[in-house]
């Protein structure tokens, strides 16, 4: 009967107080873990701005934004970010030209036309493809896609933005298709049935009812794709070349912002040198570019959000 004699103590007031106090401690610990996310964001912005501030005490913002030569590591140093921005935008553009139409088409096909079985087979594969290491895609771009392109386009250099952009496009197709398909599945069934009842075919329903209805979700998928293309590092570092060139011609080699950061990191730059600080300034520009597209996406999705 030892159980019954200890029972009052176990459920007594002091025990309850202990358990409640323990709850408060636990809540505080959990809160701290939640704050890690906030801390990370603050730290990212803080580190980028702090290290860039040294860079901008050395280089005027005017030169940074208008000079068309980027050679921070040379004796004749120029600090114009434009060549890196042009490289980034060109690669992103090539990637999106491939990924948005094909990704959207696959999303429409899977959501509206494919059989249940095909969809359930393809969806996990699409999600699996998202986990493929990007350095593997870099290998594809440099050693498999570029040789093929060189046969089609004579005189194409071994490093070029076209190949990198095409492979990044191929890389983000599964992503856009998967997220886009989710958005289209979320359009309620009765809207499709209303359209069929009016005599529309599947394609008409898909293009005029489902796609407009899912537009905010589709736009979100595109924005995520753009963010990935802008921030993609290994494919461009391997296949697009490391030479900053102010050009929008995809058949030329050029460095992107990310490729420049990799190039500097591979070398042995002393902490606190202008080259070291320049990668933080480049990173800041990269963050701002991603931010701009995300803000555009935020307003697009809000403007076109359909409520059911």
């Amino acid at each position, binding site marked *: 009967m030892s159980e019954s004699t200890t029972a009052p103590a176990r459920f007594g007031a002091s025990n309850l107080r202990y*358990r409640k106090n323990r*709850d408060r401690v636990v*809540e505080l*610990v*959990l*809160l701290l*873990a*939640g*704050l*890690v*996310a906030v801390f*990370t*964001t603050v*730290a*990212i912005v803080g*580190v*980028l701005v702090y*290290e860039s501030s040294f860079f901008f005490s050395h280089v005027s913002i005017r030169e940074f934004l208008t000079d068309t030569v980027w050679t921070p590591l040379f004796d004749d140093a120029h600090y114009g970010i434009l060549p890196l921005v042009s490289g980034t935008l060109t690669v992103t553009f090539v990637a999106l030209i491939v990924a948005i139409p*094909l990704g959207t088409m*696959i999303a*429409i*096909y899977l959501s509206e*036309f*494919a059989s249940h079985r095909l969809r359930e087979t*393809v969806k996990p*594969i699409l999600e*699996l*493809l998202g*986990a*493929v*290491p990007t*350095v*593997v895609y*870099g*290998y*594809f771009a*440099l*050693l*498999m896609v570029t040789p093929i392109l060189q046969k089609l386009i004579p005189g194409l250099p071994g490093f070029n933005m076209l190949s990198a952009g095409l492979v990044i496009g*191929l890389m983000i197709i*599964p992503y856009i298709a998967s997220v886009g398909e989710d958005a289209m599945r979320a359009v309620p069934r009765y809207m499709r049935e209303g359209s069929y009842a009016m005599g529309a*075919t*599947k394609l008409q329903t898909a293009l005029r009812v489902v796609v407009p209805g899912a537009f905010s979700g589709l736009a979100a998928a595109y924005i*995520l794709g753009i*963010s990935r293309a*802008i*921030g*993609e*590092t*290994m494919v461009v*570092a*391997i296949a697009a070349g490391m030479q900053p060139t102010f050009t929008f011609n995809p058949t030329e080699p050029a460095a992107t912002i990310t490729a420049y*950061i*990799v190039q500097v*990191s591979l070398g042995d730059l002393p902490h606190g040198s202008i080259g070291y600080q320049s990668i933080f300034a480049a*990173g800041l520009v*990269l*963050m701002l570019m*991603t931010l701009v597209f*995300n803000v555009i996406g935020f307003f697009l999705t809000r403007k076109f959000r359909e409520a059911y």
Partner: protein
Amino acid sequence: MAAAAELTLAEIRKGLSWRKKLDTAFMVAGLLVLIACLGLLAALFLDLVHRGADRFGWDFLANFPSRKAERAGILSAWVGTSLIMLVTALVALPVGVAAAIYLEEYSAKNWFTNIVEINVTNLAGVPSIVYGLLALGLFVYAFGLGQSILTAGLTLALLILPIVIVATRESLRAVPKAIREAAYGLGATRWEVTKDHVLPYSTGGILTGLILGLSRAIGETAPLITIGALSFIAFLPPSPVTGEFPFLNFEWLKSEFTAMPIQMFNWVSRPDQAFQANSAAAGAILLGMTLLMNALAIWIRYRFRKKINW
């Protein structure tokens, strides 16, 4: 309806058959695009395995990198990757799960929770190389952790934190309210409800999220290059387990490192064909690791789902 009335039956039939043809055409085109994309990717993966095929073998796994392509192996790379993943998992799991529990079970809906949530969403979209810059400025120099396995593990842990948090929240949300209320009804405190009732039911989802996060982290190259991973490491970090008391040794955390994707990157950028074969082999093994982890995640999700029936 005047315009419609003027259409003859024949015209309507013609329009309908045209629209149906368009329908079929799109269906065929959609299927072709899908097959073309997946087929192209499959061809690239198979070609990768094929190009690396000659290099697979025990020597490749047991040798250090070398100046001679045929003697080079990935020993330091896969050991480095394993140790980094260990640190990443040990950091990301508790922090991610705790943050998710806070957001899902504890917090009230207020401006503070909103800020945390917006942060988690935004962090998922930050380019991975930016995490590398964060780690370079903060972990390597400000905290003085150096270019070590610890720095790499912490960096990748921050990188996959959003994935772990989102997956954990989803699996916590899937636990029915009734289970919590039954426990509260018996006088359990919030933490007791969470620890004894909610968490056991969501273990499957949490583990799945962690493994998916790790499968992303294992292939990350850019942040590791940024913090200064070396590509030529011909030694192993000190062993975590020792023969003497206290049997555990944490020196390995401070060791310099290389990792699988770094090794692959280093080999791919050499013009020598023999090194490119090494790169393909390393890539195929890395790809295999990623696929295995994903398969494991799917299996765990399936096992746990089978056990739960409410």
